[in-house]
């Protein structure tokens, strides 16, 4: 679905990513992991042109992203940012904004948009809260609202930057279930995650970044066996089998 070929990207004139060549396949969850400052957020921001790439090529559905208009790109890729403003608007209105890329001037949401937004709310279990103000919800619920908005965007790919930050463990697990459901719907899901254990548990594919370069990419087992995680983080990773599947435990 999304292919990067020798991509270099950065911000404020500084190159953060160097010659990245990776694919994000359809219907799969890809987790991007790496130490702080390695370029994880820059990588997914380059996919939606928030940090435009300076060289190389990015293809979305075999079309160069430079050939997409802002609206067309938003119809293909939804992006849930790490730093989010929490607006004083209703949950329904917020999710309706997911339909924004489909409207032309003067943008007014129609019946079909409302229906899609309500379906997204229903899927996220937020139907009863549609008139609540987003700012009055807990952090976990606010994150769900953002994900429902991304779903209403009806794009093939959904990118999420640190979706579990500031969430308690119960909300984290619920959110991970929602993310799995998105992949089951056939969406291309790309996550930036700090929690290695969580990333390896949920992802079909893992990309390890270090200092702006992709050290390893593949299934969690392939990445684990490559030994590149230790190289990236400078820690020891153990793979342990539990009742709920394989878990990855890191220690110094």
């Amino acid at each position: 679905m999304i292919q990067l070929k020798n991509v270099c990207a950065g911000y404020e004139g500084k190159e953060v990513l160097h010659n990245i060549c990776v694919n994000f396949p359809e219907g799969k969850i890809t987790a991007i992991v790496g130490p702080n400052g390695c370029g994880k957020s820059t990588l997914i921001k380059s996919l939606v042109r928030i940090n435009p790439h300076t060289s190389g090529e990015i293809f979305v559905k075999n079309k160069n992203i430079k050939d997409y208009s802002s609206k067309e790109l938003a119809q293909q890729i939804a992006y849930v940012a790490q730093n989010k403003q929490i607006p004083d608007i209703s949950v329904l209105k917020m999710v309706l904004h997911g339909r924004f890329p489909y409207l032309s001037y003067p943008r007014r949401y129609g019946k079909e948009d409302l229906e899609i937004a309500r379906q997204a709310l229903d899927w996220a279990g937020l139907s009863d809260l549609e008139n609540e103000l987003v700012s009055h919800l807990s952090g976990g619920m606010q994150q769900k609202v953002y994900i429902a908005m991304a779903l209403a965007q009806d794009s093939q790919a959904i990118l999420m930057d640190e979706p579990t930050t500031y969430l308690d463990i119960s909300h984290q697990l619920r959110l991970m279930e929602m993310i799995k459901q998105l992949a089951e719907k056939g969406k291309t899901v790309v996550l930036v995650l700090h929690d290695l254990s969580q990333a390896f548990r949920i992802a079909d594919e893992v990309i390890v970044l270090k200092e702006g370069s992709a050290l390893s990419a593949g299934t969690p087992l392939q990445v684990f066996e490559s030994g590149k995680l230790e190289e990236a983080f400078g820690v020891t990773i153990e793979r342990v089998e539990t009742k709920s599947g394989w878990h990855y435990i890191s220690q110094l």
Partner: protein
Amino acid sequence: MKNWKKFFQTNIKKKTGILFLIATFLLLLVLFFSLSMGAAELSFKDIWTAIKEGADSGVAGRIFWHVRLPRTLACALSGAALATAGVVIQNVLSNKLASPGIIGVNAGAGVAVTICCACGAVSGWIIAGAAFGGALFAVLTVALAAQKIGASKTTVILGGVAVNSFLNAVSEAISTLNPDVGIQTADFRVGGFSSVAYTRLIPAAVLILFALLIVFTLSNELDVISLGEDTASGLGLPVRKMRTVFLVLAALLAGASVSFAGLLGFVGLIVPHMARSLVGNESKYLLPFSALIGAAFVTLCDLASRVLFAPYEVPVGILMSFIGGPFFIFLLVKRRRQ
């Protein structure tokens, strides 16, 4: 009070219509009193006769057409323009303490108008255009500085206050060095409507109505931009372009208003807050509602400034500062508590 607020915010669609009706009725009532009350009272019959027969229908007709109507229209237009500009600036800068008066937008327009007076420019179009240019310069300076240095919400305000002080100092310097300009702009610097003339009002009114129309059609864009740069970009909004469009429109509204009303402070701060507490933060309702109550608020303040101390008239800018200063402190305290 909290229950009412919650009630309005959660049932906003059903209740907004009623609030709009009430606001429209209040505006019409205030406009009528503004046309009617003053040194010479005009009855409803006098006003109706003046409308039917024009300015030549006697003393009442001349007062209506040459004094009360331009003044009332000026109040309504500047109130609507400054309140709408306040909403736009607050949303674009993601800061509810921002307003055209506080971050130097009005002061920028003020410098431009003062320079026009010093150069002897009298054309309404030139003055309105220059005021727009000055306002645009100020708002872009603040916005660019905020963007370049990644300023926090408080720093944006402090930067705006600095720009405001600097531009006011420029105006004062010109007025001091050129006493004629000082005399010409004395009312202007305080803000008021006692000397409004059609020659200045009409060009500004055209700009204001044009900008209001455009802003109202961009309500969804304004909401999306309020979600932050990353989220708005992810939704396909060309953020930088739209931010510039909004700041240009805010400058147009504030600049055009300043060109005939002078440096009216706090309207762009007080009114958006009143509107937010009643109709919530969705721009589709907030923008037109702010314009409505902004028009009513300024007209009411002007009426009070004429009537309360009759036969003397207190410039409405002074009255607004009396209300606005404490209100700003109230907002700071409220934010601190939150």
